Protein backbone atom coordinates (compact mmCIF):
# COMPACT_ATOMS: atom_id res chain seq x y z
CA UNK A 1 0.00 0.00 0.00
CA UNK A 2 1.40 3.43 -0.85
CA UNK A 3 2.66 5.24 2.25
CA UNK A 4 0.52 8.28 1.44
CA UNK A 5 -2.65 6.20 1.48
CA UNK A 6 -3.98 6.12 5.01
CA UNK A 7 -7.32 4.56 4.16
CA UNK A 8 -7.88 1.13 5.52
CA UNK A 9 -8.94 -1.68 3.24
CA UNK A 10 -12.42 -1.43 4.82
CA UNK A 11 -12.60 2.20 3.78
CA UNK A 12 -11.52 1.37 0.25
CA UNK A 13 -14.19 -1.29 0.17
CA UNK A 14 -16.87 1.15 1.26
CA UNK A 15 -15.88 3.59 -1.45
CA UNK A 16 -15.97 0.85 -4.08
CA UNK A 17 -19.45 -0.14 -2.89
CA UNK A 18 -20.63 3.45 -3.22
CA UNK A 19 -19.33 3.57 -6.76
CA UNK A 20 -21.10 0.30 -7.61
CA UNK A 21 -24.37 1.67 -6.24
CA UNK A 22 -23.92 4.83 -8.28
CA UNK A 23 -23.37 2.80 -11.47
CA UNK A 24 -26.52 0.80 -10.75
CA UNK A 25 -28.42 4.08 -11.02
CA UNK A 26 -27.80 3.95 -14.75
CA UNK A 27 -31.00 3.35 -16.78
CA UNK A 28 -29.53 -0.01 -17.79
CA UNK A 29 -29.02 -1.10 -14.19
CA UNK A 30 -26.14 -3.39 -13.28
CA UNK A 31 -24.95 -6.67 -11.80
CA UNK A 32 -25.26 -5.53 -8.23
CA UNK A 33 -25.20 -8.65 -6.08
CA UNK A 34 -22.16 -10.41 -7.52
CA UNK A 35 -20.20 -7.16 -7.64
CA UNK A 36 -20.91 -6.33 -4.02
CA UNK A 37 -19.88 -9.82 -2.86
CA UNK A 38 -16.55 -9.41 -4.64
CA UNK A 39 -15.55 -6.03 -3.21
CA UNK A 40 -13.16 -7.06 -0.42
CA UNK A 41 -11.43 -9.51 -2.74
CA UNK A 42 -10.88 -6.80 -5.37
CA UNK A 43 -9.79 -4.16 -2.88
CA UNK A 44 -7.41 -6.49 -1.08
CA UNK A 45 -5.86 -7.57 -4.36
CA UNK A 46 -5.50 -4.11 -5.88
CA UNK A 47 -4.31 -2.37 -2.71
CA UNK A 48 -2.16 -4.92 -1.00
CA UNK A 49 -1.44 -8.02 -3.06
CA UNK A 50 -1.02 -7.35 -6.77
CA UNK A 51 2.28 -6.11 -8.16
CA UNK A 52 0.72 -3.40 -10.33
CA UNK A 53 1.17 0.27 -11.06
CA UNK A 54 -2.02 2.19 -11.90
CA UNK A 55 0.06 4.74 -13.80
CA UNK A 56 1.53 1.99 -15.95
CA UNK A 57 -1.22 -0.58 -16.40
CA UNK A 58 0.76 -2.43 -19.07
CA UNK A 59 4.04 -2.58 -17.16
CA UNK A 60 6.00 -5.72 -17.99
CA UNK A 61 6.11 -8.37 -15.29
CA UNK A 62 3.05 -6.95 -13.55
CA UNK A 63 0.77 -9.43 -11.87
CA UNK A 64 -2.18 -10.34 -14.06
CA UNK A 65 -5.80 -10.52 -13.02
CA UNK A 66 -8.72 -11.89 -15.00
CA UNK A 67 -12.26 -11.39 -13.79
CA UNK A 68 -13.60 -14.68 -15.06
CA UNK A 69 -17.00 -13.94 -13.55
CA UNK A 70 -17.30 -11.11 -16.02
CA UNK A 71 -20.67 -10.04 -14.66
CA UNK A 72 -18.73 -8.50 -11.78
CA UNK A 73 -17.47 -5.85 -14.20
CA UNK A 74 -18.91 -2.84 -12.40
CA UNK A 75 -17.15 -4.05 -9.27
CA UNK A 76 -13.91 -4.33 -11.23
CA UNK A 77 -14.33 -0.89 -12.85
CA UNK A 78 -15.08 0.66 -9.46
CA UNK A 79 -12.05 -1.02 -7.87
CA UNK A 80 -9.77 0.07 -10.73
CA UNK A 81 -11.00 3.66 -10.58
CA UNK A 82 -10.74 3.75 -6.79
CA UNK A 83 -7.19 2.41 -7.09
CA UNK A 84 -6.29 5.18 -9.52
CA UNK A 85 -6.21 3.46 -12.89
CA UNK A 86 -8.59 6.16 -14.19
CA UNK A 87 -10.65 8.94 -12.60
CA UNK A 88 -13.70 7.87 -10.62
CA UNK A 89 -15.78 10.42 -12.58
CA UNK A 90 -15.36 8.28 -15.69
CA UNK A 91 -17.56 5.64 -14.09
CA UNK A 92 -20.56 7.82 -14.97
CA UNK A 93 -19.89 6.57 -18.52
CA UNK A 94 -21.07 3.08 -17.56
CA UNK A 95 -23.71 1.87 -20.01
CA UNK A 96 -23.61 5.12 -21.99
CA UNK A 97 -23.83 4.52 -25.78
CA UNK A 98 -20.39 4.31 -27.41
CA UNK A 99 -18.71 4.32 -23.99
CA UNK A 100 -16.04 1.79 -22.97
CA UNK A 101 -17.74 0.65 -19.80
CA UNK A 102 -19.76 -2.33 -20.93
CA UNK A 103 -21.49 -4.58 -18.42
CA UNK A 104 -18.82 -7.23 -18.96
CA UNK A 105 -15.13 -6.31 -18.81
CA UNK A 106 -13.84 -4.38 -21.77
CA UNK A 107 -10.05 -4.56 -22.28
CA UNK A 108 -10.10 -0.99 -23.57
CA UNK A 109 -10.50 0.05 -19.92
CA UNK A 110 -7.13 0.65 -18.21
CA UNK A 111 -6.32 -2.31 -15.95
CA UNK A 112 -8.67 -4.78 -17.64
CA UNK A 113 -6.47 -7.55 -19.03
CA UNK A 114 -9.00 -9.62 -20.99
CA UNK A 115 -12.63 -9.45 -22.04
CA UNK A 116 -14.75 -11.98 -20.18
CA UNK A 117 -18.44 -12.60 -19.68
CA UNK A 118 -19.13 -16.00 -21.09
CA UNK A 119 -18.36 -18.09 -18.03
CA UNK A 120 -15.60 -20.66 -17.86
CA UNK A 121 -12.99 -18.77 -19.87
CA UNK A 122 -10.83 -17.18 -17.17
CA UNK A 123 -9.04 -20.18 -15.74
CA UNK A 124 -7.74 -21.41 -19.13
CA UNK A 125 -6.45 -17.88 -19.78
CA UNK A 126 -4.81 -17.91 -16.36
CA UNK A 127 -3.13 -21.22 -17.17
CA UNK A 128 -1.74 -19.58 -20.31
CA UNK A 129 -0.47 -16.60 -18.31
CA UNK A 130 1.15 -18.82 -15.70
CA UNK A 131 2.69 -21.04 -18.36
CA UNK A 132 4.24 -18.01 -20.02
CA UNK A 133 5.56 -16.79 -16.68
CA UNK A 134 7.28 -20.09 -16.13
CA UNK A 135 8.76 -20.17 -19.62
CA UNK A 136 9.95 -16.59 -19.21
CA UNK A 137 11.38 -17.21 -15.75
CA UNK A 138 9.11 -14.51 -14.34
CA UNK A 139 7.85 -14.57 -10.77
CA UNK A 140 4.65 -12.74 -11.73
CA UNK A 141 1.48 -14.17 -10.30
CA UNK A 142 -1.74 -14.70 -12.23
CA UNK A 143 -5.05 -14.30 -10.44
CA UNK A 144 -8.38 -15.53 -11.76
CA UNK A 145 -11.59 -14.49 -10.04
CA UNK A 146 -14.30 -17.10 -10.50
CA UNK A 147 -17.95 -17.10 -9.61
CA UNK A 148 -19.26 -20.12 -7.77
CA UNK A 149 -22.07 -20.73 -10.26
CA UNK A 150 -19.39 -20.46 -12.93
CA UNK A 151 -17.81 -23.63 -11.61
CA UNK A 152 -20.64 -25.50 -13.32
CA UNK A 153 -18.84 -24.82 -16.62
CA UNK A 154 -16.69 -27.81 -17.55
CA UNK A 155 -13.84 -25.77 -18.97
CA UNK A 156 -12.99 -24.61 -15.43
CA UNK A 157 -12.16 -28.17 -14.51
CA UNK A 158 -10.26 -28.80 -17.73
CA UNK A 159 -8.03 -25.90 -16.74
CA UNK A 160 -7.87 -27.00 -13.11
CA UNK A 161 -6.52 -30.39 -14.17
CA UNK A 162 -3.97 -28.91 -16.54
CA UNK A 163 -2.75 -26.32 -14.00
CA UNK A 164 -2.08 -28.97 -11.38
CA UNK A 165 -0.44 -31.40 -13.81
CA UNK A 166 1.87 -28.68 -15.09
CA UNK A 167 2.63 -27.51 -11.53
CA UNK A 168 1.65 -23.90 -12.18
CA UNK A 169 2.13 -22.47 -8.72
CA UNK A 170 2.05 -18.85 -9.89
CA UNK A 171 -1.64 -19.35 -10.63
CA UNK A 172 -4.10 -18.29 -7.93
CA UNK A 173 -7.86 -18.68 -8.34
CA UNK A 174 -10.41 -17.04 -6.10
CA UNK A 175 -13.95 -18.38 -5.90
CA UNK A 176 -16.51 -15.78 -4.90
CA UNK A 177 -18.58 -18.28 -2.95
CA UNK A 178 -21.76 -16.32 -2.43
CA UNK A 179 -23.83 -19.46 -2.82
CA UNK A 180 -26.32 -18.04 -5.29
CA UNK A 181 -26.84 -18.17 -9.00
CA UNK A 182 -29.64 -16.45 -10.93
CA UNK A 183 -32.38 -18.88 -9.99
CA UNK A 184 -31.32 -19.58 -6.41
CA UNK A 185 -28.80 -21.54 -4.35
CA UNK A 186 -26.04 -23.30 -6.28
CA UNK A 187 -26.65 -26.39 -4.18
CA UNK A 188 -30.20 -26.69 -5.54
CA UNK A 189 -29.01 -26.42 -9.13
CA UNK A 190 -25.78 -28.32 -9.75
CA UNK A 191 -24.22 -28.57 -6.31
CA UNK A 192 -20.58 -27.68 -5.71
CA UNK A 193 -19.90 -28.95 -2.21
CA UNK A 194 -17.65 -30.17 -0.78
CA UNK A 195 -15.99 -27.43 -2.79
CA UNK A 196 -12.58 -27.23 -1.10
CA UNK A 197 -12.28 -31.00 -1.23
CA UNK A 198 -13.06 -30.97 -4.92
CA UNK A 199 -10.24 -28.52 -5.63
CA UNK A 200 -7.84 -30.47 -3.41
CA UNK A 201 -8.69 -33.67 -5.25
CA UNK A 202 -7.73 -31.84 -8.46
CA UNK A 203 -4.27 -31.17 -7.02
CA UNK A 204 -4.75 -27.62 -5.78
CA UNK A 205 -4.08 -26.00 -2.43
CA UNK A 206 -7.51 -24.85 -1.25
CA UNK A 207 -7.92 -22.20 1.43
CA UNK A 208 -11.32 -21.18 2.75
CA UNK A 209 -11.70 -17.69 4.19
CA UNK A 210 -14.34 -15.13 5.10
CA UNK A 211 -14.42 -13.22 1.84
CA UNK A 212 -15.44 -10.02 3.57
CA UNK A 213 -12.43 -10.01 5.91
CA UNK A 214 -9.58 -8.16 4.15
CA UNK A 215 -6.98 -9.31 6.68
CA UNK A 216 -7.74 -12.95 6.06
CA UNK A 217 -7.92 -12.43 2.32
CA UNK A 218 -4.58 -10.65 2.47
CA UNK A 219 -2.95 -13.57 4.25
CA UNK A 220 -4.43 -16.18 1.94
CA UNK A 221 -3.82 -14.31 -1.33
CA UNK A 222 -0.51 -12.75 -0.36
CA UNK A 223 0.87 -16.06 0.88
CA UNK A 224 0.14 -18.09 -2.23
CA UNK A 225 1.57 -20.49 -3.13
CA UNK A 226 1.85 -22.25 0.19
CA UNK A 227 3.15 -25.36 -1.51
CA UNK A 228 5.69 -25.11 -4.31
CA UNK A 229 4.43 -26.65 -7.55
CA UNK A 230 0.77 -26.39 -6.60
CA UNK A 231 -1.75 -23.84 -7.84
CA UNK A 232 -3.84 -22.20 -5.13
CA UNK A 233 -7.55 -21.57 -4.86
CA UNK A 234 -8.94 -19.23 -2.23
CA UNK A 235 -12.59 -19.94 -1.58
CA UNK A 236 -13.95 -16.64 -0.37
CA UNK A 237 -17.17 -17.21 1.53
CA UNK A 238 -19.22 -14.14 0.71
CA UNK A 239 -22.74 -12.74 0.76
CA UNK A 240 -24.40 -11.74 -2.49
CA UNK A 241 -25.34 -8.06 -2.34
CA UNK A 242 -23.05 -7.51 0.68
CA UNK A 243 -23.36 -4.04 2.20
CA UNK A 244 -27.01 -3.48 1.43
CA UNK A 245 -28.96 -5.36 4.12
CA UNK A 246 -32.24 -5.21 2.21
CA UNK A 247 -30.82 -7.28 -0.67
CA UNK A 248 -28.07 -9.26 1.06
CA UNK A 249 -28.19 -12.99 0.45
CA UNK A 250 -30.96 -12.69 -2.09
CA UNK A 251 -30.75 -14.11 -5.60
CA UNK A 252 -32.77 -11.17 -6.93
CA UNK A 253 -29.83 -8.88 -6.16
CA UNK A 254 -28.07 -10.44 -9.20
CA UNK A 255 -29.12 -7.58 -11.45
CA UNK A 256 -30.72 -4.37 -10.28
CA UNK A 257 -31.39 -0.81 -11.16
CA UNK A 258 -31.14 1.49 -8.17
CA UNK A 259 -32.83 4.70 -9.18
CA UNK A 260 -34.00 7.73 -7.23
CA UNK A 261 -35.03 6.87 -3.70
CA UNK A 262 -33.61 3.35 -3.88
CA UNK A 263 -30.19 4.67 -4.70
CA UNK A 264 -30.36 7.36 -2.01
CA UNK A 265 -31.34 4.73 0.52
CA UNK A 266 -28.46 2.45 -0.52
CA UNK A 267 -25.95 5.29 -0.33
CA UNK A 268 -27.30 6.28 3.09
CA UNK A 269 -26.82 2.71 4.33
CA UNK A 270 -23.22 2.77 3.11
CA UNK A 271 -22.64 6.23 4.63
CA UNK A 272 -23.80 4.87 7.98
CA UNK A 273 -21.30 2.01 7.64
CA UNK A 274 -18.58 4.52 6.87
CA UNK A 275 -19.37 6.43 10.04
CA UNK A 276 -19.17 3.21 12.02
CA UNK A 277 -15.79 2.36 10.45
CA UNK A 278 -14.44 5.83 11.23
CA UNK A 279 -15.68 5.64 14.85
CA UNK A 280 -14.02 2.29 15.33
CA UNK A 281 -10.80 3.60 13.80
Amino acid at each position, binding site marked *: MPATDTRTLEEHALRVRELIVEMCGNPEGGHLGGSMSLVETLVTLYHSVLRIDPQHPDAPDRDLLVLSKGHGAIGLYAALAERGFFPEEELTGYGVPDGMLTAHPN*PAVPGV*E*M*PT*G*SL*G*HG*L*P*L*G*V*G*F*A*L*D*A*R*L*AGSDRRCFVLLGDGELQE*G*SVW*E*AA*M*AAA*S*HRLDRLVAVVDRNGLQITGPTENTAGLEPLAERWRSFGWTAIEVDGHDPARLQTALGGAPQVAGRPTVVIARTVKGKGLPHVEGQARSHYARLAGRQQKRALAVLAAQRKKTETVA
Partner: protein
Amino acid sequence: MTTSTREPVPAAVEAPAARPSREVYRDLLAELIGKDERLVCLDSDTGLFSSVDWGAAQDRYVNLGIAEQNMMGVAAGLARCGRMPFANTMAAFAGTRALEAVKLDIALNNLPVRIAATHSGLSAGHLGSTHHALEDLAVMRLLPNMTVLVPADAAATEELVRASLDVPGPVYLRLGRGGTPDLGADLPPLRVGVAQRLRSGRDVTLIATGPYPVLAALAAAKELADEGIAAGVLNMHTVKPLDVDAVVEAAETTAAVVTVEEHWAAGGLGSAIAEVVAGLGVACPVRRVAVQDRFAAGSGGQQHLLERNGITAEAVAAETRRALLGRRVG
Protein backbone atom coordinates in the same frame (compact mmCIF):
# COMPACT_ATOMS: atom_id res chain seq x y z
CA MET B 1 -22.02 -37.55 -74.72
CA THR B 2 -23.97 -37.16 -71.52
CA THR B 3 -22.33 -37.02 -68.13
CA SER B 4 -24.06 -40.19 -66.98
CA THR B 5 -22.21 -42.35 -69.48
CA ARG B 6 -18.90 -40.75 -68.71
CA GLU B 7 -16.35 -42.79 -66.75
CA PRO B 8 -15.42 -41.12 -63.46
CA VAL B 9 -12.20 -39.20 -63.72
CA PRO B 10 -10.26 -39.87 -60.54
CA ALA B 11 -9.77 -36.79 -58.42
CA ALA B 12 -6.21 -37.79 -57.78
CA VAL B 13 -3.76 -37.55 -60.61
CA GLU B 14 -1.35 -40.39 -61.22
CA ALA B 15 1.36 -38.96 -59.00
CA PRO B 16 2.06 -40.95 -55.84
CA ALA B 17 0.89 -39.50 -52.54
CA ALA B 18 3.51 -37.36 -50.91
CA ARG B 19 4.01 -36.85 -47.19
CA PRO B 20 0.91 -36.00 -45.20
CA SER B 21 0.55 -32.27 -44.62
CA ARG B 22 0.29 -32.81 -40.88
CA GLU B 23 3.70 -34.49 -40.81
CA VAL B 24 5.26 -31.79 -42.96
CA TYR B 25 3.81 -29.23 -40.56
CA ARG B 26 4.98 -31.13 -37.50
CA ASP B 27 8.56 -31.42 -38.68
CA LEU B 28 8.66 -27.78 -39.71
CA LEU B 29 7.29 -26.69 -36.35
CA ALA B 30 9.93 -28.77 -34.60
CA GLU B 31 12.55 -26.93 -36.64
CA LEU B 32 11.08 -23.44 -36.24
CA ILE B 33 10.49 -23.72 -32.50
CA GLY B 34 14.22 -24.07 -31.93
CA LYS B 35 14.85 -20.75 -33.64
CA ASP B 36 11.99 -18.66 -32.32
CA GLU B 37 11.42 -18.27 -28.58
CA ARG B 38 7.88 -17.04 -29.16
CA LEU B 39 6.69 -20.39 -30.48
CA VAL B 40 4.94 -22.82 -28.16
CA CYS B 41 3.46 -26.14 -29.25
CA LEU B 42 0.23 -26.86 -27.37
CA ASP B 43 -1.05 -30.38 -27.77
CA SER B 44 -4.43 -31.86 -26.93
CA ASP B 45 -2.97 -35.36 -26.81
CA THR B 46 -3.15 -35.78 -30.57
CA GLY B 47 -0.22 -38.18 -30.71
CA LEU B 48 1.17 -36.24 -33.64
CA PHE B 49 4.27 -35.19 -31.72
CA SER B 50 5.23 -38.46 -30.03
CA SER B 51 8.30 -38.95 -32.19
CA VAL B 52 9.56 -35.37 -32.02
CA ASP B 53 12.79 -34.55 -30.22
CA TRP B 54 12.25 -30.97 -29.12
CA GLY B 55 15.79 -30.57 -27.88
CA ALA B 56 16.34 -27.29 -26.07
CA ALA B 57 12.73 -26.31 -26.76
CA GLN B 58 11.32 -29.23 -24.76
CA ASP B 59 9.67 -26.89 -22.25
CA ARG B 60 7.73 -25.25 -25.08
CA TYR B 61 5.96 -28.47 -26.00
CA VAL B 62 3.02 -28.67 -23.59
CA ASN B 63 0.47 -31.47 -23.71
CA LEU B 64 -2.66 -30.13 -22.04
CA GLY B 65 -4.65 -33.32 -22.37
CA ILE B 66 -7.91 -34.01 -24.14
CA ALA B 67 -9.47 -30.65 -23.45
CA GLU B 68 -9.69 -28.48 -26.54
CA GLN B 69 -11.62 -25.57 -25.04
CA ASN B 70 -9.01 -25.23 -22.33
CA MET B 71 -6.23 -25.44 -24.90
CA MET B 72 -7.64 -22.51 -26.90
CA GLY B 73 -7.91 -20.42 -23.73
CA VAL B 74 -4.38 -21.34 -22.69
CA ALA B 75 -3.18 -20.42 -26.17
CA ALA B 76 -4.85 -17.02 -25.85
CA GLY B 77 -3.26 -16.47 -22.45
CA LEU B 78 0.17 -17.30 -23.82
CA ALA B 79 -0.36 -15.09 -26.86
CA ARG B 80 -1.48 -12.20 -24.64
CA CYS B 81 1.93 -12.49 -23.00
CA GLY B 82 3.74 -12.24 -26.35
CA ARG B 83 3.98 -15.88 -27.40
CA MET B 84 2.91 -17.42 -30.69
CA PRO B 85 1.30 -20.70 -29.70
CA PHE B 86 0.41 -23.44 -32.16
CA ALA B 87 -2.71 -25.13 -30.79
CA ASN B 88 -3.06 -28.63 -32.16
CA THR B 89 -6.23 -30.65 -32.54
CA MET B 90 -8.40 -32.20 -35.22
CA ALA B 91 -10.46 -29.88 -37.41
CA ALA B 92 -13.64 -31.50 -36.14
CA PHE B 93 -12.86 -30.30 -32.61
CA ALA B 94 -11.27 -26.95 -33.42
CA GLY B 95 -14.22 -25.68 -35.40
CA THR B 96 -17.09 -26.68 -33.19
CA ARG B 97 -16.17 -28.05 -29.77
CA ALA B 98 -13.64 -25.33 -29.00
CA LEU B 99 -15.39 -22.64 -31.00
CA GLU B 100 -16.39 -20.33 -28.19
CA ALA B 101 -12.86 -20.19 -26.85
CA VAL B 102 -11.59 -19.56 -30.38
CA LYS B 103 -14.13 -16.78 -30.84
CA LEU B 104 -13.87 -15.02 -27.49
CA ASP B 105 -10.36 -15.72 -26.25
CA ILE B 106 -8.49 -15.69 -29.55
CA ALA B 107 -10.42 -13.87 -32.31
CA LEU B 108 -11.96 -11.15 -30.15
CA ASN B 109 -8.52 -10.25 -28.83
CA ASN B 110 -6.90 -10.65 -32.26
CA LEU B 111 -4.16 -12.77 -30.71
CA PRO B 112 -1.50 -14.54 -32.80
CA VAL B 113 -2.56 -18.10 -32.08
CA ARG B 114 -2.08 -20.65 -34.85
CA ILE B 115 -4.73 -23.34 -34.79
CA ALA B 116 -3.33 -26.37 -36.55
CA ALA B 117 -6.29 -28.55 -37.44
CA THR B 118 -5.58 -31.99 -38.86
CA HIS B 119 -8.05 -34.55 -40.29
CA SER B 120 -9.97 -31.80 -42.08
CA GLY B 121 -12.76 -32.42 -44.54
CA LEU B 122 -13.26 -36.13 -45.14
CA SER B 123 -9.62 -37.01 -44.57
CA ALA B 124 -10.47 -38.90 -41.38
CA GLY B 125 -12.18 -41.35 -43.76
CA HIS B 126 -13.28 -44.51 -42.00
CA LEU B 127 -13.06 -42.86 -38.59
CA GLY B 128 -16.58 -41.69 -39.34
CA SER B 129 -18.79 -38.63 -39.17
CA THR B 130 -17.67 -37.62 -35.67
CA HIS B 131 -14.18 -37.07 -37.06
CA HIS B 132 -15.07 -35.43 -40.35
CA ALA B 133 -14.90 -31.65 -40.49
CA LEU B 134 -17.12 -30.28 -43.21
CA GLU B 135 -18.04 -27.06 -41.41
CA ASP B 136 -14.72 -25.65 -40.29
CA LEU B 137 -14.14 -23.26 -43.19
CA ALA B 138 -17.60 -21.76 -42.67
CA VAL B 139 -17.08 -21.47 -38.95
CA MET B 140 -13.60 -20.01 -39.05
CA ARG B 141 -14.22 -17.54 -41.85
CA LEU B 142 -17.12 -16.11 -39.86
CA LEU B 143 -14.78 -14.91 -37.16
CA PRO B 144 -13.41 -11.37 -37.44
CA ASN B 145 -9.58 -11.20 -37.39
CA MET B 146 -9.17 -14.86 -38.41
CA THR B 147 -6.96 -15.87 -41.34
CA VAL B 148 -7.91 -19.24 -42.87
CA LEU B 149 -5.19 -21.14 -44.74
CA VAL B 150 -5.64 -24.39 -46.68
CA PRO B 151 -2.49 -25.92 -48.17
CA ALA B 152 -3.11 -28.11 -51.20
CA ASP B 153 0.01 -30.26 -50.91
CA ALA B 154 3.13 -30.87 -48.85
CA ALA B 155 5.12 -28.02 -50.37
CA ALA B 156 2.25 -25.61 -49.84
CA THR B 157 2.03 -26.70 -46.22
CA GLU B 158 5.64 -25.73 -45.70
CA GLU B 159 5.18 -22.41 -47.50
CA LEU B 160 2.00 -21.46 -45.69
CA VAL B 161 3.23 -22.45 -42.23
CA ARG B 162 6.28 -20.25 -42.77
CA ALA B 163 4.11 -17.44 -44.12
CA SER B 164 1.76 -17.73 -41.15
CA LEU B 165 4.52 -16.52 -38.84
CA ASP B 166 4.13 -13.05 -40.36
CA VAL B 167 0.36 -12.86 -39.91
CA PRO B 168 -0.30 -10.54 -36.96
CA GLY B 169 -3.60 -12.07 -35.83
CA PRO B 170 -4.96 -15.60 -35.42
CA VAL B 171 -4.55 -18.23 -38.13
CA TYR B 172 -6.53 -21.38 -38.83
CA LEU B 173 -4.40 -23.92 -40.66
CA ARG B 174 -6.46 -26.64 -42.33
CA LEU B 175 -4.47 -29.85 -42.60
CA GLY B 176 -5.29 -33.38 -43.68
CA ARG B 177 -4.55 -36.84 -42.39
CA GLY B 178 -2.97 -38.96 -45.10
CA GLY B 179 -0.60 -38.06 -47.88
CA THR B 180 -1.95 -36.37 -50.99
CA PRO B 181 -0.28 -35.97 -54.40
CA ASP B 182 2.14 -33.14 -55.03
CA LEU B 183 0.77 -30.48 -57.34
CA GLY B 184 4.13 -30.26 -59.06
CA ALA B 185 7.14 -28.03 -59.04
CA ASP B 186 7.48 -24.52 -60.48
CA LEU B 187 4.15 -23.26 -59.20
CA PRO B 188 3.76 -19.54 -58.47
CA PRO B 189 4.85 -18.78 -54.89
CA LEU B 190 2.13 -18.68 -52.25
CA ARG B 191 1.26 -15.38 -50.69
CA VAL B 192 -1.31 -15.19 -47.89
CA GLY B 193 -4.49 -13.62 -49.29
CA VAL B 194 -3.50 -13.97 -52.94
CA ALA B 195 -5.00 -16.76 -55.06
CA GLN B 196 -2.49 -19.00 -56.81
CA ARG B 197 -3.17 -19.31 -60.51
CA LEU B 198 -2.49 -22.87 -61.63
CA ARG B 199 -3.93 -22.60 -65.12
CA SER B 200 -5.22 -19.84 -67.36
CA GLY B 201 -8.44 -20.10 -69.31
CA ARG B 202 -10.66 -17.47 -70.85
CA ASP B 203 -13.99 -19.32 -70.74
CA VAL B 204 -14.60 -20.31 -67.17
CA THR B 205 -12.79 -20.17 -63.84
CA LEU B 206 -12.54 -23.11 -61.47
CA ILE B 207 -11.71 -22.01 -57.92
CA ALA B 208 -10.71 -24.74 -55.51
CA THR B 209 -9.28 -25.12 -52.03
CA GLY B 210 -7.55 -28.11 -50.47
CA PRO B 211 -5.62 -31.04 -51.99
CA TYR B 212 -8.25 -33.15 -53.76
CA PRO B 213 -10.48 -30.25 -54.80
CA VAL B 214 -7.52 -28.55 -56.49
CA LEU B 215 -6.55 -31.82 -58.19
CA ALA B 216 -10.16 -32.32 -59.30
CA ALA B 217 -10.25 -28.81 -60.75
CA LEU B 218 -7.00 -29.37 -62.62
CA ALA B 219 -8.16 -32.71 -64.01
CA ALA B 220 -11.52 -31.24 -65.00
CA ALA B 221 -9.81 -28.33 -66.75
CA LYS B 222 -7.77 -30.80 -68.79
CA GLU B 223 -10.88 -32.74 -69.72
CA LEU B 224 -12.79 -29.59 -70.63
CA ALA B 225 -9.90 -28.44 -72.79
CA ASP B 226 -10.44 -31.54 -74.95
CA GLU B 227 -13.97 -30.27 -75.55
CA GLY B 228 -12.74 -26.82 -76.48
CA ILE B 229 -13.56 -25.18 -73.16
CA ALA B 230 -10.71 -23.13 -71.71
CA ALA B 231 -10.95 -23.34 -67.93
CA GLY B 232 -8.67 -21.36 -65.63
CA VAL B 233 -7.85 -22.83 -62.24
CA LEU B 234 -7.24 -20.84 -59.07
CA ASN B 235 -5.96 -22.44 -55.90
CA MET B 236 -7.71 -20.42 -53.19
CA HIS B 237 -5.36 -21.45 -50.40
CA THR B 238 -6.43 -18.45 -48.33
CA VAL B 239 -10.16 -18.66 -47.70
CA LYS B 240 -9.98 -15.61 -45.45
CA PRO B 241 -9.10 -12.88 -46.21
CA LEU B 242 -10.50 -13.88 -49.59
CA ASP B 243 -8.69 -12.64 -52.68
CA VAL B 244 -11.63 -10.54 -53.78
CA ASP B 245 -9.73 -9.08 -56.74
CA ALA B 246 -9.16 -12.54 -58.17
CA VAL B 247 -12.83 -13.43 -57.73
CA VAL B 248 -13.98 -10.18 -59.34
CA GLU B 249 -11.64 -10.73 -62.26
CA ALA B 250 -12.94 -14.27 -62.73
CA ALA B 251 -16.55 -13.12 -62.61
CA GLU B 252 -15.98 -10.22 -64.98
CA THR B 253 -13.75 -11.89 -67.54
CA THR B 254 -15.00 -15.48 -67.70
CA ALA B 255 -18.51 -16.76 -68.27
CA ALA B 256 -18.90 -18.75 -65.06
CA VAL B 257 -17.23 -19.67 -61.81
CA VAL B 258 -17.23 -23.20 -60.44
CA THR B 259 -15.99 -23.72 -56.90
CA VAL B 260 -14.62 -26.96 -55.48
CA GLU B 261 -14.10 -27.79 -51.82
CA GLU B 262 -14.01 -30.68 -49.37
CA HIS B 263 -16.63 -29.03 -47.19
CA TRP B 264 -20.36 -28.64 -46.92
CA ALA B 265 -21.80 -26.43 -49.64
CA ALA B 266 -23.21 -24.04 -47.05
CA GLY B 267 -20.83 -21.43 -45.80
CA GLY B 268 -17.55 -22.57 -47.28
CA LEU B 269 -15.40 -21.33 -50.15
CA GLY B 270 -18.24 -21.46 -52.66
CA SER B 271 -20.45 -19.38 -50.40
CA ALA B 272 -17.67 -16.87 -49.83
CA ILE B 273 -17.20 -16.50 -53.57
CA ALA B 274 -20.94 -16.33 -54.27
CA GLU B 275 -21.19 -13.51 -51.69
CA VAL B 276 -18.67 -11.51 -53.67
CA VAL B 277 -20.10 -12.26 -57.12
CA ALA B 278 -23.68 -11.56 -56.01
CA GLY B 279 -22.74 -7.97 -55.29
CA LEU B 280 -21.04 -7.29 -58.60
CA GLY B 281 -24.08 -6.99 -60.83
CA VAL B 282 -22.51 -9.17 -63.50
CA ALA B 283 -24.28 -12.14 -65.05
CA CYS B 284 -21.86 -14.78 -63.86
CA PRO B 285 -23.25 -17.99 -62.43
CA VAL B 286 -21.43 -19.55 -59.47
CA ARG B 287 -21.85 -23.30 -59.18
CA ARG B 288 -20.53 -25.13 -56.17
CA VAL B 289 -19.02 -28.60 -56.07
CA ALA B 290 -19.14 -29.43 -52.39
CA VAL B 291 -20.56 -31.97 -49.98
CA GLN B 292 -24.31 -31.61 -49.92
CA ASP B 293 -26.38 -31.03 -46.81
CA ARG B 294 -25.85 -34.40 -45.18
CA PHE B 295 -23.40 -36.26 -42.98
CA ALA B 296 -21.03 -38.48 -44.88
CA ALA B 297 -22.15 -41.63 -43.14
CA GLY B 298 -20.55 -44.99 -43.77
CA SER B 299 -17.02 -46.23 -43.87
CA GLY B 300 -14.40 -45.66 -46.51
CA GLY B 301 -11.19 -43.82 -47.17
CA GLN B 302 -10.95 -40.16 -48.04
CA GLN B 303 -11.02 -40.68 -51.80
CA HIS B 304 -13.90 -43.12 -51.56
CA LEU B 305 -15.93 -40.63 -49.54
CA LEU B 306 -15.03 -37.83 -51.94
CA GLU B 307 -16.38 -39.86 -54.84
CA ARG B 308 -19.50 -40.82 -52.88
CA ASN B 309 -20.09 -37.15 -52.19
CA GLY B 310 -19.40 -35.91 -55.68
CA ILE B 311 -16.11 -34.13 -55.12
CA THR B 312 -14.57 -35.45 -58.32
CA ALA B 313 -13.12 -34.12 -61.54
CA GLU B 314 -16.14 -35.56 -63.32
CA ALA B 315 -18.50 -33.58 -61.11
CA VAL B 316 -16.48 -30.42 -61.62
CA ALA B 317 -16.56 -30.89 -65.39
CA ALA B 318 -20.29 -31.59 -65.30
CA GLU B 319 -21.01 -28.51 -63.19
CA THR B 320 -18.92 -26.44 -65.56
CA ARG B 321 -20.88 -27.64 -68.57
CA ARG B 322 -24.12 -26.83 -66.77
CA ALA B 323 -22.84 -23.39 -65.89
CA LEU B 324 -21.96 -22.75 -69.50
CA LEU B 325 -25.23 -23.99 -71.01
CA GLY B 326 -26.48 -21.40 -73.42
CA ARG B 327 -23.38 -19.26 -72.97
CA ARG B 328 -21.03 -18.55 -75.80
CA VAL B 329 -17.55 -19.82 -75.08
CA GLY B 330 -14.42 -20.49 -77.07
